[in-house]
């Protein structure tokens, strides 16, 4: 596992890997609401056929970014390029994007088929063509025979599918999804995640997906963009985001982690909690202050003499698949996820390999 040094490098790797056309480019995008700056210069390239997720806590600017791409908000500064053409001044009804809204926004006065046909009717398509397109869409989202149903009487999951069909039937270049699974219960959520990914592969267009749910982001996306406070924190593949968080925010927002301040003695050697550990990271200054991420599931409990870091089990919680154990050491309390049981009060050692250590720059150091 190598460390990707800067945001620019991360982008470079993706670009090489995908070798696809850039579809949307956000250039130094800013947005102010009254005196509050919600976007502080967003630079982002979005490619064809990409499933890209904007991930972050509420108020991080992810929805605003999506609404600017859709055309519902004007950026305060910067550019939105679509196929290389500036579109910030183009109204939403002339953009080649469609949106799946958070609460679906299905028209209550129209039935399922009429909702889906809304965009096609505006384009003055032949009724026969509209009918067959609507049928095909309903089939794709698994709602065959629902044409005449009242949308207000559908379940949340069904409304969601109608909303997706209504957007996709217009054959947009990009589908924007604003927390589309937020209102669904956990079981249907899981199922819809799977189906969304399937639909995306089927129609082969770009999906831009907004969510605050890290699991959703990691399981569906090609690219995850982690945002906080109106700034992009990291762009990368889900595995990169999880395994190689670039800073403390990403590490703590994506999954659980033990974050430890330390010093990079030299390439492949890091010091924290009073010991030196071999690691796989390089490219830092010698003796640079850094932070180390240790994922709870990467840590193992061993006999005290087998490990450098030793501590006492303070708490153990059964979580189903694994136990979550809190171990108090001289400097801090580590969180561990393991299938092994250890009784409270026992003295144990904490073991991890060089590849389990992820070194990153401390917050605000770049």
């Amino acid at each position, binding site marked *: 596992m190598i460390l990707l040094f800067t945001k620019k490098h991360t982008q470079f790797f993706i670009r090489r890997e995908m070798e696809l056309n850039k579809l949307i480019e956000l250039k130094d995008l800013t947005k102010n609401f009254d005196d509050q700056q919600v976007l502080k210069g967003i630079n982002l390239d979005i490619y064809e056929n990409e499933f890209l997720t904007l991930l972050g806590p509420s108020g991080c600017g992810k929805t605003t970014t999506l609404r600017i791409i859709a055309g519902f908000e004007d950026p305060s500064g910067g550019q939105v390029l679509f196929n290389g053409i500036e579109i910030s001044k183009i109204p939403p009804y002339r953009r080649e994007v469609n949106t799946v*809204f958070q609460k679906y*926004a299905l028209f209550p006065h129209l039935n399922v088929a*009429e909702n889906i046909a809304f965009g096609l009717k505006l384009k003055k398509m032949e009724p026969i063509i509209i009918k067959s397109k609507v049928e095909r869409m309903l089939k794709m989202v698994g709602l065959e025979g629902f044409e005449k149903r009242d949308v207000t009487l559908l379940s949340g999951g069904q409304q969601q599918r109608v909303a997706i069909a209504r957007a996709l039937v217009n054959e947009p270049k990009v589908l924007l999804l604003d927390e589309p699974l937020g209102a669904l219960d956990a079981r249907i959520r899981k199922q819809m995640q799977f189906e969304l990914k399937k639909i995306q592969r089927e129609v082969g267009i770009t999906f831009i997906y907004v969510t605050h749910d890290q699991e959703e982001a990691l399981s569906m996306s090609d690219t995850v963009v982690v945002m906080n406070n109106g700034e992009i924190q990291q762009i990368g593949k889900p595995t990169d985001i999880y395994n190689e968080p670039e800073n403390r925010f990403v590490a703590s927002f994506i999954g659980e982690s033990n974050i430890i301040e330390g010093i990079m003695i030299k390439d492949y050697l890091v010091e924290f909690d009073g010991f030196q550990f071999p690691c796989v990271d390089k490219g830092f200054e010698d003796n640079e202050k850094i932070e180390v991420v240790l994922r709870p599931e990467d840590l193992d409990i061993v006999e005290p003499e087998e490990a450098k870091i030793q501590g006492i089990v303070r708490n153990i919680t059964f979580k189903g698949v694994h136990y979550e154990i809190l171990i108090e050491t001289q400097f801090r309390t580590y969180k561990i996820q393991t299938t092994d049981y250890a009784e409270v009060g026992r003295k144990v050692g904490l073991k991890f390999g060089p590849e389990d250590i992820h070194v990153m720059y401390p917050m605000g150091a770049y």
Partner: protein
Amino acid sequence: MKHFRHLIKPYLIWSILIIVIPLLLIGLYAFTEEGNAVLTFTFTLENFRKFAESTYLNVIIKSFRLGILATVICLIAGYPLAYIISKQAEDIQSFLILLVTVPSWINMLLRTYAWMNLLSDNGIINNLLGLLGIDPITMMYTDFSVMLGLVCNLMPFMIISIHTSLSKMDHSYIEAANDLGANPVQTFWKVTWVLSLPGVLNGVMLVFLPAISSFVIPKLLGGGQYMLIGNLIESQFISVGNWNFGSAISLILAAAILILMRLVKRIDVMGRQEE
């Protein structure tokens, strides 16, 4: 909540006393002859036959025409205003709605007398026109003055009921329509207008019903010769003293209004199914 049920009883008794019994009395009067003793009634359809005379039929036709016209004017003028108000920030909205209702704080009679002063042949407007060298225009005691009075009185009901349905409409419907390719005009007619129809119908009823049965405004602004169905009923009860004929006309008016409202509702339901 069950033990609160008995609290409704005083209201029930009150409603029976002031609504149901008078209605039954009107029905009784309408179907009986004039000059009955307290307990002996002679039933007749004469009152209804009398109404079929062209003089009276013309009155009801004129009333309906006026009522419909006033409603249409209120709708055409009120909808854009309600729409513009609903687009403002919340605190500005409540202020504007307050302004709309301000005239109704003043007694309706006073407002009507004010119009008389403004509109009369030597009233304020004609005096101003005179200063500009324009000959006085007769405005009082015409269809115009009656219509003006009705529209100004009833407009707030139209605006408020349309505004209510517009302001509680979810903005994401409009964004969804835009997103699917509808320009602002298409969005208005295909989404906003259709979703505001319940408010429009509400407003239509609130304006049409008082407009068709009003008698003070036509009397004051239309003059003694201006006969609408409300004036007809009033005169039968107050000056002519034929309560039986007055009751019959009231019943006919009520029936006509009920039928019309049913039709409007029907159109509304059909319109929605067609969409």
